[in-house]
Structure formats: C-alpha cells, structure tokens
C-alpha cells in the first residue's frame, strides 16, 4: 500500500445555517480544503451523508456535489453508514490512494438537518426499524439504556456523565467553528429538560447543519507540494449487531473495540501512544464507553477517568478538543470528516487556544447508530 497524507482541510461553522443550502455548505467546505491543499485537480470525490433523502429530499449526492463544485466528470460517490458516514468516506478515500488508483482525493461530509424534516424519525432509521423503532424507542432512549446499564454494572454516576458535556462545552468555547461556544455546569446538565431518563437535552448532541472536507494525497504528491506531512497511518472499521438488545453486553461497544484494536495493530501503536482523540460523543455516555473501548482506561472506569479531568485539554489524553459532537455540533454525515479536520489542525499546531502542545499522534473514532458500525483512523505528523 502507498502512504497517504492529509494535505488540506476546511469546514463551515456548525449550527443552524438557515440561509445556506445543503449543496452550498458542502462547496464552501470543499473550496476551503482545496485552497488549503493548493491542488489544481482532483482524481476522485467521496461524500459522507447519513440521510439527505429524509432531511432535504436529496439523494444522488456524489454527482450533485461534483457538479456544484465544478469538478465533473471526476468520479464521485456518496457513502452511508449512519452517523459514521463521514468516517467511512474518509476510509474509502484512504484506500483509493493507498491502492494507487488515485493521487489526490477530496473527502467531504455534509448534513442539513434544520430544513424542517422530522429529525427524530430520520435519525431513528439508523436503528432496527422493525424491532426497536416500532416499539417506540428513540436514539436518546437507546443510549439512555446503555447509560442505565453502565451505572448499574460499574457504579458510574449521573454527575460523571455530566462532566463529559461540561468538558466538551469548555473546549467548544475555544473553537470558532463550534455550534455552542458557551460554558455549562454539571448542575445545568443534570437539571436540563429530560429527553430519556437519565439523559437530558444537555447530555445530547444537537441538531446541526454543517460540512467538513479534507484533501488526501499520496505521500509523494504531498512532498512535491511541500506540505507538512500529516500521514494517515491506520484506517480500520468494524460492525456489531444493529439492535442494541442483540448484544451480549449492553455497555460494550464491540465495533469500536474491534476497529480500535486493528487500527493500533496497523500502525504498530498502543493506546498510550495516542496524544489526543476526537470521539463520537453523540450522548455523554457514548464518550465514557468509547474511552474504555479505545483502551485509554479500564472497562467501567470511563466515568471516573472523565471526572478526574484525564480527558480534559490539560489531562493525560485530551478527548474532543474541538468540543466534540456535543458542543461543536453533529451534522451527522459531516462529523467523521470534521473529527479529521480537528486532528490535522492540532498536529499542524493551528488549533489556537485549544492547542495540545507538541502533539504528533492523534486518533479519530466515528460511530453509527447505537454502535453497530465504527471507524477509527490514526494520524501521525512526520517531522
């Protein structure tokens, strides 16, 4: 396989972008990434979007975006794996270059969720329609059941869950692209409107519009362009039972665990080598389970680890320096690519007030549904 590097990145601000269309937010992010990369052509385009058909009535997204970006006839395809559509698009682009098929590829992620669609229904299509959604369960409901089981099995507290949101809002307050740039308190999280017991609206990522893009190139092309060499040293994905009730242990995200283990193996790295990570905190409990599955802390200790500040900006392994899905926003299909944008900015040393000092190795973990699919990438800065 050839070495693959990220040579450009760009994103829109995440939030309620009512004045901008689905296609225009993608093009805005894509132009920033292409300009950043300094390339004059693309060989291929991959666009992650979860359910644009339900959100804005638009499918055939690959061709649409190639057309509006003005790069047709470049081959383009839309990639879908629920909430990790963006991360999976990145993975396909990675292999397109690694295989030698393409030299320069644009990866985009985009979602427009505030155009009036039934968002709860649209998101629920990532769960088992016949045996979960039919019974009246929602996504917050599924994660609430994971939270309840985690609290029961490991003694994780309501307060520990809240600490995830408090930390991520703090990080979001330092990120000009974040949907929410305000600090919140543990008391506010616990006292907020209940969505699905024990999770409140402040345990939940928001409904967002937004797009993020990265330009990938072979290392040879990246060197010719004299770009700082941020290599993708791992791309791994895995799956698990779609329905939460089919899983042996409700608190274990097996797809995340498998993807992480094979990502570490591919890069020849250990969890302790990772200096920062962007993870899929669609709900506070998700981040607690994920830091366990990624091997940053022992299973069951994720709540305590977070409460102690180990995952904070100045902690031993900063997690979601961007503000995560909680504060940066979660335009579903864009999330996986936006995670890559954050890690690249951090490794380049461009993360401003939220910069993690001397970071050279970062990880992204993106996840679909209640954890039935997950994708992990590891990025390494070459000096």
């Amino acid at each position, binding site marked *: 396989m050839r070495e693959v590097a990220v040579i450009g990145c760009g994103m829109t601000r995440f939030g309620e972008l009512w004045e901008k269309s689905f296609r225009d937010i993608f093009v805005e992010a894509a132009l920033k990434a292409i300009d950043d990369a300094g390339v004059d052509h693309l060989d291929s385009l991959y666009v992650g979007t979860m359910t644009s058909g339900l959100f804005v009535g638009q499918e055939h997204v690959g061709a649409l975006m190639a057309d509006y970006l003005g790069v047709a006839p470049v081959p383009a395809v839309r990639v879908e794996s629920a909430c990790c559509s963006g991360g999976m698009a990145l993975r396909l682009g990675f292999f397109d270059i690694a295989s030698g098929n393409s030299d320069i590829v644009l990866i985009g992620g985009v979602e427009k969720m505030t155009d009036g669609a039934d968002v709860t229904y649209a998101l629920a299509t990532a769960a088992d329609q016949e045996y*979960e959604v039919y019974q*009246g*369960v929602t996504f917050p409901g599924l994660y609430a059941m994971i939270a309840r089981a985690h609290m029961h099995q490991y003694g994780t507290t309501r307060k520990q869950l809240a600490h995830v949101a408090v930390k991520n809002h703090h990080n979001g307050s330092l990120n000009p692209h974040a949907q929410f740039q305000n600090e919140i308190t543990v008391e506010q999280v616990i006292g907020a409107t*209940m969505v699905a017991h024990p999770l409140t609206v402040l345990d939940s990522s928001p409904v967002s519009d937004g797009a993020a893009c990265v330009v990938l190139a072979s290392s040879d092309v990246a060197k010719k362009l004299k770009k700082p060499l941020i290599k993708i040293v791992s791309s791994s994905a895995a799956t698990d039972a779609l329905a939460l009730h089919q899983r042996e242990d409700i608190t274990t995200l097996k797809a995340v665990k498998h993807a992480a283990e094979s990502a570490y193996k591919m890069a020849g790295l250990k969890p302790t080598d990772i200096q920062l990570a962007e993870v899929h905190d669609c709900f506070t409990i998700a981040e607690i389970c994920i830091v366990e599955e990624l091997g940053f802390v022992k299973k069951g200790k994720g709540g305590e680890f977070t409460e102690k500040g180990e995952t904070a900006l100045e902690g031993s392994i900063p997690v979601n320096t961007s503000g995560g899905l909680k504060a940066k926003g979660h335009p579903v299909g864009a999330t996986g690519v936006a995670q890559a944008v954050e890690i690249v900015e951090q490794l380049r040393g461009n993360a401003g007030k939220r910069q993690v000092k001397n970071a050279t190795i970062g990880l992204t973990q993106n996840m679909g549904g209640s954890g039935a699919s997950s994708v992990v990438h590891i990025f390494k800065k070459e000096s």
Partner: protein
Amino acid sequence: MPSPRYWRETPQRYRLEAAKCKQCGKISFPPRLVCLGCGNKDFDTVKLSDKGKIVTFTTICVAPTQFTEEAPYSIAIVELSDGVRFTTQVVDCTPEDLEIGKPVKIVFRKIQEEDKTGIICYGYKAVLT
C-alpha cells in the same frame, strides 16, 4: 407504516414466533436465515417464553411522532427465560416502579396506528409481575 411491512412481521409480533436452530439449538428472534450460533440454515419454529426480566430500561420523554400522545412511557430491554432479548415498552406502571432485574410478563397490546385511515398495529409489551 406500510401495510406489507407490518403484515410480514405478524407471526413474531402476535405470537412471539422464533427460529430454533436444528443444529446448535440457538433461538433467533426475530427469525433469521442464518444462525448466529453456528451458521446453519435449518430451523424449527418455536414460541418464546412470555416470562422474563428487565436488563436495562429508560423512560422516553421526547417521543417520535406516532408515540407523542403516550409520552412519557417506559422502554426496556427484556431477557426472556429462554435467553432471548428484545426491546419493548413496559406498561401499566409508573417509571419509578422499574428496576434492573425485575420480573415481567409479555402481553399482547396495540403498539401504534398507521394514520387516521390506516391499519392499527399490534404487538408485544411487558408488564411487571
């Protein structure tokens, strides 16, 4: 919900019909074409137990459109005495009554309506025993 999609699932939803692998004995609910236990493709139809216990639960406060009139309502993952797990509403109780490990019985109830002129959809729910 489109009627054919509903009609196809009635053996599972009305009668708790499951598929028991002829080779390894693992019960799949809903029935599958490939056994997750051993990869075998031959099954017997069996009826699930109607007794079980709560594995985990929540109370939904913000509900999907077709359930808004019922909110708040409780949902649990239930493990039946034959080992099968599924997601179901727990009814005829208040959210405070629910606890992990509490025994439940499975009952036949109305689940949702298609729309004003459409079909009424039935299925299983749990009650505390």
